[in-house]
């Protein structure tokens, strides 16, 4: 059985890895370099989230898969089990901490509530007076381009754009065609070039990385206000998110913009993002920044990825729309697709992610 996978980002790479293990002969096509799109631009969270039961199911399943894979991954993938700390700025957000604590504890996710003082001890550079936080110790971060490269290490990767799709066949920009029993479209926001009706929108983000400050930051920090801003599917927003990297550098996000098409730094947006970070960690303002960049998340209206049979095709499958959780959920995405191809039951229900769903959001 031959499989062609369109897209050499983390999702395409995970699918290639999984299908190869199922015995498929896999070819991956991408006009750019391995992991050169959203995979390179993103933060590399390996996080469990609970925006919806389906998001929780997918992220928690995937995190378990990452934990298994971590033992095989090379050091360059920089798996850092730093844990996530959700920061509650006030009593209202602290109530959310307790709700999340109950939700995750019931489902066996290791989680801990920190009061104001415990939070300050856990992250001394946070502004004093935060209400508290939620520590999710199983979360971590990784360096995704090297993880993608490792997943693809024994897969044939062709540097070409797929310009046309037909049942059992793709046409490359150089004119040649590839036949396959299975075709997986895993090229993020570019999937709309092949499927114009997909409810997929590019959502621009900015990131900044500092020089090396080992030990300055200990956990991935995310403000609970993140949920309010990341929840909005229309307005531009910023939210404080900072990660320690294995190099000692600090990666700072995040911003979300709809309708932005060029990849240039948007100065007012970057300024807002940094001001938000300074509100949470004033000391960040004095650290040296060395690079900024942008990227585009593939966002869907209900904030869940699109995984499964492409409408109108029997040999074509979709694996896109992972928004800001593509690294976290890539491995589970690949498992769900492989199960579908092999006519197996999956560990979690596949229905919430099927392409033909209603995409309604609350």
């Amino acid at each position, binding site marked *: 059985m031959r499989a062609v996978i369109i897209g050499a980002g983390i999702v395409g790479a995970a699918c290639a890895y999984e299908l190869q293990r199922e015995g498929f002969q896999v070819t991956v096509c991408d006009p*750019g*370099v*391995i*992991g*050169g799109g959203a995979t*390179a631009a993103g933060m590399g969270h390996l996080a469990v989230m609970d925006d919806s039961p389906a998001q929780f199911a997918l992220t928690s399943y995937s995190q378990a898969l990452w934990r298994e894979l971590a033992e095989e991954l090379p050091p*360059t993938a920089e798996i850092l089990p730093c844990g996530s700390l959700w920061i509650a700025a006030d009593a209202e957000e602290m109530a959310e901490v307790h709700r999340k604590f109950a939700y995750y504890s019931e489902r066996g996710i290791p989680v801990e509530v920190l009061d104001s003082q415990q939070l300050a001890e856990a992250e001394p550079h946070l502004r004093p007076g935060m209400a508290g936080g939620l520590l999710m110790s199983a979360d971590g971060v990784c360096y995704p*381009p*090297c993880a993608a*490269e490792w997943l693809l290490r024994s897969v044939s990767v062709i540097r070409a754009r797929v310009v046309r799709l037909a049942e059992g066949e793709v046409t490359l920009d150089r004119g040649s065609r590839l036949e396959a029993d299975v075709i997986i479209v895993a090229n993020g926001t570019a999937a709309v070039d092949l499927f114009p009706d997909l409810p997929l929108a590019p959502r621009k983000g900015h990131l*900044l990385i*500092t*020089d090396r400050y080992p030990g300055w930051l200990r956990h991935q920090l995310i403000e609970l206000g993140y949920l309010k801003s990341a929840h909005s599917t229309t307005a531009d927003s910023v939210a404080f998110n900072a990660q320690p990297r294995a*190099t000692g550098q600090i990666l*700072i996000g995040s911003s979300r913009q709809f309708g932005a098409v060029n990849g240039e*730094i948007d*100065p*007012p947006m*970057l*300024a807002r993002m*940094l*001001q938000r*970070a*300074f509100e949470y960690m004033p000391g*960040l*303002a*004095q*650290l*040296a*920044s*060395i*690079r*900024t*960049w942008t990227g585009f998340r593939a966002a869907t209206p209900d904030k869940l990825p699109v995984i499964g049979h492409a409408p109108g095709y029997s040999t074509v499958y979709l694996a896109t729309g992972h928004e800001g959780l593509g690294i976290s959920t890539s491995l589970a995405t690949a498992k769900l697709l492989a199960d579908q191809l092999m006519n197996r039951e999956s560990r979690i229900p596949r229905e919430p992610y099927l392409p033909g769903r209603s995409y309604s959001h609350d």
Partner: protein
Amino acid sequence: MTDLLIIGAGPAGIAAAVTAAEQGASVTVIDDNHAPGGQIWRGEFHGKPWYDRFQKVKLNIISDARVIAVHGNAVVIEQGAAARTIHWNKVILATGARELFLPFPGWTLPGVTGVGGLQALVKSGLVIRNKRVAVAGSGPLLLAAAAYLRAKGADLVMIAEQVPTAALMRFGMELRKHPKKLKQAAALQLQLLGVPYVRDCYVEHATGKGKLETLQFRQGSKTFTEEVDYAAIAYGFTPETELAAAFGCEILAHGVWVDKRQQTSIQNVYCAGESTGIGGVDVALLEGELAGLAACRKPTKHLLPLLAREQHFASLLNQTFSPRPGLKHLCTADTIVCRCEDVTYQVLRQQPDSRTAKLQTRCGMGPCQGRICGPANTFLFGWEQGSVRPPILPARMATLALSMTQETSS
């Protein structure tokens, strides 16, 4: 708001600033050093050409400041812990050049420095007296730096010039057409009397326990070693074009593109000196003067013949002293090429292109922003250098945030 903003106070920036100020322009100069003079006249501007004229004009000089971001007709600078925005009508970029380092085994040992680099260290207090020093690489800077180091008491072991003898002879013949340069060369030779000047010779590797101890040189088919305390090694210069790129100017392989009036591809943005292509101090002074006049809408034609003559000499230099292809093969598997991220030659050699190299190895992603390994990788692998985004130089996040809010107000 300043009429004319000049970025860089080396020879080109000084000539541009003085010329424009003499024409009555209100001129602001931003420089990243403590005092004007650039790399070449660091701490020694006094007594150099243009010094007297420089003393007589009124200039607003902002020292120890670095441009972090460019927005429309404003730049954001960082000066110590302070950040501010400067608006301009016209700008002259005179950012100069940095030394070209080509990696070889042992080049990261303490004691191995650049040629101008060692000079700068001595100027800022390093005691070189009675230290055994070898100067190697390529170009006339080797002689100038060696003479300086000798005057400061260094025990000069040798000067190794990688250019083959025949090419140096041809250069010598051409040099006769430029009597002023010939005179400078003769003066340097006099100061370096007794120091071996070895042609067709380069450093193959450096060794030492924790610091530089021994250099191995190659000359043709033979090799020999020298015990040294310091090795000052560079293969000429590479233009500083990052700031021009941030202004949106067109950049060519040899430097920033300019027209006959030193204007870049962006209106009201001029560029002068080494950043337009390596040409040496005399080209830089002329280009600076030209840019200063052009920015004041004054005639510049009278300078063109002089400039053409100097540029002829510059192209002669560039032809003669370009690094030989053999220098591409000095690295061994474990030679570090990207010093910020500790990326070895072995790892880089396996990368198909520069973007993959960046993503998979983080080559060029450290605090030097690829300024050191970028030109080396262009020489070694033919890779293009990366794009420029804010911060143009590493900057405090507070400065960057300020720079980002300025655009809306400008």
